Structure formats: C-alpha cells, structure tokens
C-alpha cells in the first residue's frame, strides 16, 4: 500500500509538471518512474505478471522503459487487468459491445479517477483551449447517465464540468443525435456572435453535416469556435474520410481547419492524444502538418505489425503506448491502430483492417453470433 501511495504521488507529480515538452531531466525521471510502475504492476497484477514471466521480462530483467512488455488490448477482454481488488475500482470503462455480446467487451477498471482527471484535463486544455477560451460545450454525445461505462462520455463530462461555460449541453439521447436542437444552438451561437466548442465522435459530426447538407443549410460559427472529433471506425458505425469531414466542417459550419482537432483515446488508456494544430495556432504558428501530440507522461512507439519491434520513423506500423496514468491497470498497451512516427508525434492511420478480434476473419462470425 505504501509503494502504491508513493507511486501515485510520484506519477501525479510527474503529470503535474505540465503538458509542455519535457526536458532531459524529465526524461530520466520518466524512465525511472516507468520502471517503478512496472515493478508495481508486475507484483500486483497477476495476469500481467504471468504474461511478463512467460516472456522472461521480469523487473530484474527490464532496464529500459522500451523493454516493458505491452499487453495487446484484446487481453482486456479476457481477464481482469488490475492492481489490487476489483471492488475498489471507482469505475469500469467498457469497450463498445458489438455482435459478440457483453461478455466479449473489454473492461478497464479504473481505481483512481483523480489520476485520470490529472491526465485528461490539462491535456484537453492544452490542445483544445490553448487560448484560454471559455466556451459553451455542445456535446454530440450522450450524458453519463445514458452511457455510464463509456470512457469517452466520462471524459467529456469532466471536461464540460471543468471548462464548459453556460449553455453547455448534450445532444444525444436514446433516439440518437437531436439534430434540430443542435442546429438551433448553432444558429444561436451564430446570431449572438458567441463562439462554441463542439465535441463528439466523427460519426456524430458526419450525421450532423449530412443533415445540414441535405437541406442546403450553412452556419457561420463565430471566430474561435472549434471542434473536437474522435474515432472513426472505432467508436461508431458510419464512416466519412477525415479529409471529407474536415472539408464539410469548414464548408457547413464556417470553421477554420486549424480549429478542427482530432482526439485519439482508447478505453484501456487513461491518457489521450490530440492534434497539434490548434495549440500551434494559438502560439501564433502556422502548423505545417497535422499529427498527434504525445503528452510527456506517455511514450508512443510505432512497431512492426509482424515482429512488434520498433519501426523506423516514417514507416507504417502498429501503435504501442506506455501511459504512466495507467498506474492501476497495465501501463504498456499494444494496440491494433496503425500509425506513422514522426519527429514531433505520430500520425494516426486508423485501425488495422481486419484486426478486430471477433473470433474469426471470415463471414462465419455472423452465424456464430446468430447462434449464441
């Protein structure tokens, strides 16, 4: 328990140093802290310990953070990956259930929501509100009561409470996106000249934009208005290529493209990633490329899909993250998201096609689920 408390304090202190790029001393501290967290998780998280032992990667054998074994996200569907007693979890986030049924949903037990907030809120502010704007948050997502185990919903709720100005509201209920009400809110923002922040899934934005397009409707949101969109294929069904989505956000809502920020998060991780564009814009720079920024308490590597060894910069591979804020579960996560590493972050290229663990790769999964 003492170790745990000390580590928790150390991780909080490290995250508390801020979102700005870390210096060399910070990097050394990261390495040391990551190895300590690894030793803690190895000791306290039994399925993870076994996973590491089978690979010969015990705390004694691991000298660098890069050597810490990363657990593929599917493991969260097979076992409880938590340090300590599951009864003590403050919340259990679950991956969206599809045809496979609830028993196949991944579960991320979070024991300490304050750690989650310590990571999520400053990172959001740095990338979505770098200008210190106080905006009504129009959330194209459900309330926490409607979707209590969605990590995205939970995060948006905290963001709204921490930063949302008067007029913040949710626009999704059981029947879906309430387009008419949302349009009213947008029109009100336009006529009052008061900028807003729109937050939601790419699919929800696609829905909104298609509805506007169908009626030839255009809104010119006041300068300073912005969008945070997240997940394409991953979080909801319908897909629109990112370029097309942003083109329509510019055309239909009158936004600047630099004010359209993609967020990338996952149920199994307490920390998130955001596009660099708005933050750089607020510093008076002209972003030359769009990439995801890795917060200082996270490391992201792009690894070869076949060997899981690190890829050189510029080559397509699978993203592997190490997140100190995942103190209570597993810090190192092997995803099936594709990306390309660059000097200042990584470019997210979507989910590796065919990689959803659904029991099989051919159409027979349909009859299997039908027979269940």
């Amino acid at each position, binding site marked *: 328990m003492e170790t745990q408390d000390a580590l928790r304090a150390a991780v909080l202190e490290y995250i508390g140093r801020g979102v700005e790029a870390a210096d060399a001393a910070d990097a050394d501290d990261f390495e040391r802290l990551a190895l300590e967290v690894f030793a803690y998780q190895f000791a306290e998280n039994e399925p993870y310990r076994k996973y590491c032992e089978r690979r010969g990667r015990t705390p004694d054998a691991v000298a660098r953070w890069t050597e810490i074994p990363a657990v593929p996200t599917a493991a969260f569907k097979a076992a409880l990956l938590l340090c300590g007693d599951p009864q003590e979890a403050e919340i259990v986030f679950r991956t969206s259930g599809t045809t496979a049924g609830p028993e196949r949903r991944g579960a991320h037990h979070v024991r300490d929501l304050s750690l989650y907030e310590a990571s999520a809120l400053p990172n959001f502010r740095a990338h979505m509100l770098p200008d210190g704007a106080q905006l009504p948050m129009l959330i194209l997502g459900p309330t926490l009561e409607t979707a209590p185990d969605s990590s995205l919903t939970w995060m948006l709720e905290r963001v709204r409470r921490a930063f949302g100005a008067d007029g913040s509201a949710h626009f999704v209920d059981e029947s879906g996106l309430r387009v008419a009400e949302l349009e009213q809110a947008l029109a009100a923002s336009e006529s009052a000249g008061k900028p807003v922040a729109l937050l939601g899934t790419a699919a929800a934005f696609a829905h909104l934009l298609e509805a506007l397009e169908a009626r030839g409707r255009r809104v010119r949101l006041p300068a300073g208005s912005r969008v945070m969109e997240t997940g394409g294929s991953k979080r909801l069904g319908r897909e629109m290529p990112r370029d097309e989505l942003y083109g329509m956000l510019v055309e239909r809502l009158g936004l600047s493209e630099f004010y359209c920020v993609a967020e990338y998060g996952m149920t199994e991780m307490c920390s998130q990633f955001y596009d660099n564009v708005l933050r750089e814009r607020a510093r008076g720079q002209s972003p030359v490329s769009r990439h995801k920024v890795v917060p200082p308490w996270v490391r992201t590597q792009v690894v070869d*899909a*076949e060997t899981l060894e690190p890829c050189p910069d510029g080559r397509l591979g699978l993203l592997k993250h190490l997140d100190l804020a995942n103190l209570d579960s597993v810090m190192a996560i092997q995803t099936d998201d594709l990306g390309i590493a660059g000097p200042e972050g990584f470019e997210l290229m979507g989910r*590796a096609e065919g990689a959803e*663990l659904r029991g099989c790769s051919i*159409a027979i999964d349909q009859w299997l689920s039908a027979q269940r």
Partner: protein
Amino acid sequence: MAQRAALDAFWLPEGLRRASGPFGDAGLEIQERALGPGHLPMRIPTFSPHTLRELLAGLRERGSAVLTERPLVEIVGSIGTAAARLTSPGEPLYEELLDTLPELTGYSRRMIEIGLQRMGAGWTAQALHSAIEEEFGSLDLLDDFQSRPSGGYHRAFGPPLTVHVFSGNIPGISVSSLVRALCVKSASFGKTAAGEPYLAVCFARALAEEDAELAGCLAVSYWPGGSEDLEAVAFSEASAVVAYGSDETIGDVGRRIPPATRFIAYPNRVGVALVTRRALTAERARQLARGAALDVATFDQQGCVSPHTIYAEAGGAVDPLDFARYLGEALDELAQRIPRGVMSPGESALIHQLRAHAEVRGATVFAGERGTEWTVIIEESAEFEPSPLNRVIRVCCVADLSEALSRLEKVGPHLQTVAVAGETDEVRSLAARLGAIGATRVVPVGEAAWPTPHWHHDGRFQFLDLVRFVDLETD
C-alpha cells in the same frame, strides 16, 4: 524493387475481340489497376452492359457450334495437355505463374509451386476421364443419346453458357471450375476476383496454344464484384451461374440470379480435425502432428478444406498438450520449408491480439517467435471457434470426442472437410456421425488440403450438377 509491367488480366477469344484496333469495334477500353494483395498492376477491359452482352452472346454461339460437335474425349485431351503447361516445371507458363502469383497473391513461391502441381493432378486427361466416368458411367452420354436400361435413350447437355464468379482465396479453383464446364461442353465466362485474377487467364492462354477452337469458347475478365449493371447482363445471359465466395457474396449474387438460371453456389465452409485417444500413441503422435501441420499450413488455411479447430481426445498414451507441442514443432519446421505468405498489418495484429487473449484467459499458447508465422492454442474446451486463418490453430482437449460432435452440430451446415485420426472402426463410426451432422468429406489427418479429382465438392457432383438430361422416347 523494379516496377512490373502491367499484366493482361483478361482473355477474350479471337474473333470476339473484333477486327479494328485491339478492341475497337467492341468499344472496350483497357484500364490499368492494381489488383491482389500485392497490388500488382493489371490491364483490365472496361465493359459496358452492351459490349458484355455481345461477348456473352458470341461465346454462347461458339459453344453451340463448336462444343456440341466435338467428341468429349478430344476436349478432355486438349484440357489435359493445356493444363500441363501451367503445372509442369520448365514450361514457360508455369515459370511465368511462379514469377507472378507469389507477388500477386502474397502466398510464398513454394506454396504456389506445390499448389499448381497438386491441383494439376486433377486437370490431367486421365483424371478428368475417370471423374466424368464416375459421374456419368461413360463420356458418351455427353456426345450422343445413349440407351437406358429402362428403355429409351437419354443424353446430357451442359449449359450453353456458364458464368463463373470466382473467389480469390485459392489459386486454381478458377481453373477447376472452367474445366468442369468445358467437360460438359459449356462455353464459359469467368469473372475473376481481385485477390487472384490471373491464373484463369493463363489457363485460357494455354488452351489457345493447344486448341484454339476450344479456347474460343472461353472468356475471362475482371470487374469489381457487385457491379450490378454488368452482373445483371452476365446472369441473364447465362444458363448456369457458378459462384464461389463468402456467405455474404453468395447471398448477394443469389438474389440476382433469374429463376430459370441454374445457380451453383460454393459459400464459406469450415474444416475441423478429430484425433481419438487410440490414435495418440507414442508411435503415431508425431506423424499425426506433421500431417495436421500440413493441413493447417497449406494455402495458409484459406481453403474451404482447411481445419479451424482440432479436437484431441484425452486419455491416450500421448497427452493432447504434447500433441499440440508436436504440432507446433511441425508448423515451425513448415514455416521454413513452405513459408507463410505476406500478411497485412491487420492480419498480423489480429494474430497478436488473439494470442494475448488466449494466453490471458488461461489457454496454453505455442507460437512462432519470429513473428506470427504459426500459432497453436490449446485449451480444455469443446467449443468450435473459427480461426483467423494464416496458420492459427486451436487444439481443443476433450474427455470424449462425443462432446465435440454435439458442439459441431451447430457448425454442421457450414462443415465441409473433417480430418480424422483413429482406428478403422472409430473412423467409420465418426464418419457416419459427421455425415449426419453435415460434413461432406472425411479424410485421414494430413490429407485435408488436397481433395482427389473425384471428390464431391461440398457434397455435390462436379459435372452432373451442371447438366440437363434429355430423354428420348421412341416408338
């Protein structure tokens, strides 16, 4: 790597190509597009519904004029000689295929070599002769009216035009399909799949070198599956449609077949293997594991004959866990000898995810250490689970195989090949039960990958399913 010159992924017969310009009269433009997992540049004609209808009508006329009159023994002879060009080392076409198919399909060169040679065994004149005889009694029934034991006469007629919709998973199935149609004297149009659009074209080219008249009754080309305007023409001009593919594809094609057109569908199938405890002796276990490894490794498990799960009965001299270990050793050896194909990042990622899922839920995982080249998952379970393919096999340890059989009942309609290892009496009784459940082929472990030329593909006749009998009653 040097850029390859685009290959012609089509075969259009002489005369039906029209005289002026390569395809001038028919108005066919040739487009280049990247096809197959290897994204190889391929040249593809662009059909309009009109030009396609003309081509198909031309093929049908040719078929009626040429095929009806040719003795089947001649046709079979030409097929055999032509097919040998695709399957015999040293032949230019065989070498061209070895140079092309690995990059196009992602399969290793060795896999393609083995595949062509093994599948070629079913395309020889002798094999075809005996397979036709097995279904019709003799070849004569397709040449002329033959007397019936009950009196009168009958004769078998193939469809004037068969349209084939190929799948891209296993190179060679397309050739078998065209061969079957030719053997019942049907003209054919083969619509290839993006995954493997080339082998059927090479077969037509080989046939043209051997027997131009026969090759004149064939056309092969590609368009993106689901192109409804073209497919509406193809399905309405055809007398029979033979389609291979996923349940989804088959369902989609099936909905668009006119009621009077014969539809022969080969949807998704799965295979399993059963190993009885009496088969798990110290003498046999390693050999069985090597056989099972071949069944799994051949065409990287992409075939309808490939096993997804192996049920091994506990209580024999060799424990199922040890059998699984031997299986892993055999797969590791095969990974060197017959390398697995190239994976997409998604395919590799899926295998890593699946391994982790299995491991964390408590199963034992043996796996290749270089990457994802092979994976054996063993656990106590009787539940059938489809494999993500690419040499991922689950060994289910069961106390009694009857547990497996009862679980397999729900898989029954999709079950095809079951590889069985056991004593003779066990195999007989298992085959009877498997047959009742829905399996259509029971073979020894190690023989799953290569059906004989005489097999009942998905339990059906290869040739009889295509024909129409004409009864002739006389005074």
